[in-house]
Structures are given as structure tokens and as C-alpha cells.
């Protein structure tokens, strides 16, 4: 799914990466716990989170996640945007809560990251 389409569906505001909205994501992960994000395979993944700090950007950087949506109407600070800019990311925010934002995207065909294999 193209980021432009996601932006429209969730009525997002774009804080960074306006010129890259034709970027594709193949799956999504909704989470406020960054260590949980670090436990999954997140190639070409969209991250939805209610957490706004540098650690969200660092976590995304480690996982090669380049598109982040902040939920519940939260907006990233200048510091967060600057760090994301260095990493060539797209930052959006939506007024929907995490559950609703994920539900809307799922209904529109964007699936979650695969479950982990039982160890």
C-alpha cells in the first residue's frame, strides 16, 4: 500500500517526508513497546505508535522502518523530526486511537507483521 493512500484513509497530517509519499509499505505493526517492535521481522513495515520520543526513531532506524504514524493526535517534537530526517523517514500523525487506526488499515488490506515461529 502506498503511504499516500494511508495518509488519506487515516486523515493524517504529514510532518516529514511529503516528497516520498509514493513509498510502499507491505505490512504494519501497532505498538507502544519498542522492545516488542525489535522482536519481529519488520521489512517494509509501517509503525503505528502513541509513543513520541527519540527511542521510537532509533528503534525504527535499527529495524529499517521508514514510515511512522503517531496516533491519538500526537505530534512529534522538533528533535524527533530532526532525528527522523537524518534517517530519511516519513512521519505522519492521525487523530484516531491506535486500535481504530490499525482496524481501518487492516480493513483496507494492510496486514500485520507475521507471527513469530514458536521457539
Amino acid at each position: 500500500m502506498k503511504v499516500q493512500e494511508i495518509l488519506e484513509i487515516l486523515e493524517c497530517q504529514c510532518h516529514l517526508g511529503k516528497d516520498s509519499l509514493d513509498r510502499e509499505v507491505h505490512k504494519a505493526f501497532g505498538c507502544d513497546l519498542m522492545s516488542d517492535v525489535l522482536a519481529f521481522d519488520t521489512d517494509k513495515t509501517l509503525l503505528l505508535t502513541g509513543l513520541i520520543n527519540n527511542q521510537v526513531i532509533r528503534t525504527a532506524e535499527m529495524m529499517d522502518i521508514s514510515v511512522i504514524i503517531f496516533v491519538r493526535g500526537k505530534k512529534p517534537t522538533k528533535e524527533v523530526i530532526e532525528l527522523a530526517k537524518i534517517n530519511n523517514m516519513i512521519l505522519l500523525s492521525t487523530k484516531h486511537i491506535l486500535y481504530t487506526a490499525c482496524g481501518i488499515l487492516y480493513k483496507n488490506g494492510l496486514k500485520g507483521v507475521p507471527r513469530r515461529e514458536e521457539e
Partner: protein
Amino acid sequence: MKENHTIIRQEYDIIKNDFARAGEASSNIKKILRQLGIDSAKIRKTAIATYEAEMNIVIHSNGGKIIFSISEDKIKIGAHDRGPGIKDIGLAMQEGYSTASNKVRELGFGAGMGLPNIKRCADNLTIDSKEGEYTRLDMEILL
């Protein structure tokens, strides 16, 4: 037989509770690996393990170091800190077990996934800890 010379070795000081800079060492190491043209799956594994270890030092210790080195056949990451140590390593290795404060949880950490994530990503992991003194994690990712 060909010797495995260390190509690069670097040390990064990690400061207790410095959440603004937490992750910088991992970010730098990831960039170096990319410049060296290392396979992206190996880079990802190294980045996750290093970042979790770096966050552990920031969150749980009184400060420490991340020591990175790469040779022809492996990446080595050491995470050595001064601090309270790990009381029960077996418990700390269990997913969901955490001693983190609420403040740390608000930052998105303290889910009890740090050491399990490190173990999953590293091909070899040794943990040495003395209560009240230090914790030393040494990880290897084989190339």
C-alpha cells in the same frame, strides 16, 4: 591458514539515563556495517542486539561502554557496564521479566524483551555479572 585480522575496533562511552543520545552508538555501528557492505540480515541482527544492550546500559547501569569490532569472519559487540549487575540471569532471559521503572516503561522499554531479543539475534552470547559491580555481555554475529 589465513589470520582473521580485526578490520575496525571502536569503543563508545554510554552514559546512565542519557535518553537523548541513547542509540547513537548502535546507529554509528549500523552505518559502519552498511559502508562495509555487510549482508543486510546480519546488519539488522547486529543493530537489534547492540541497541538493546545500549539501552540496557542507559536504563539499568551506572554507565559503561559498547565495544565494537569486526574481522573477516565475525562482528563482536561487547556491552560492559558498572552497576547493580543482574541478580538472576535465568529470570532476566525470560520474555516479559523486567525490573525497569515506570519512567523507563513510558519511554517504550522495560517490556522484558531486551535480553531475549539479544539472545535471538546473536550467534554467540556470554553474560557475566557480579551483583553490585558489573554486567558484561559479549556477543558475536558470524559472517
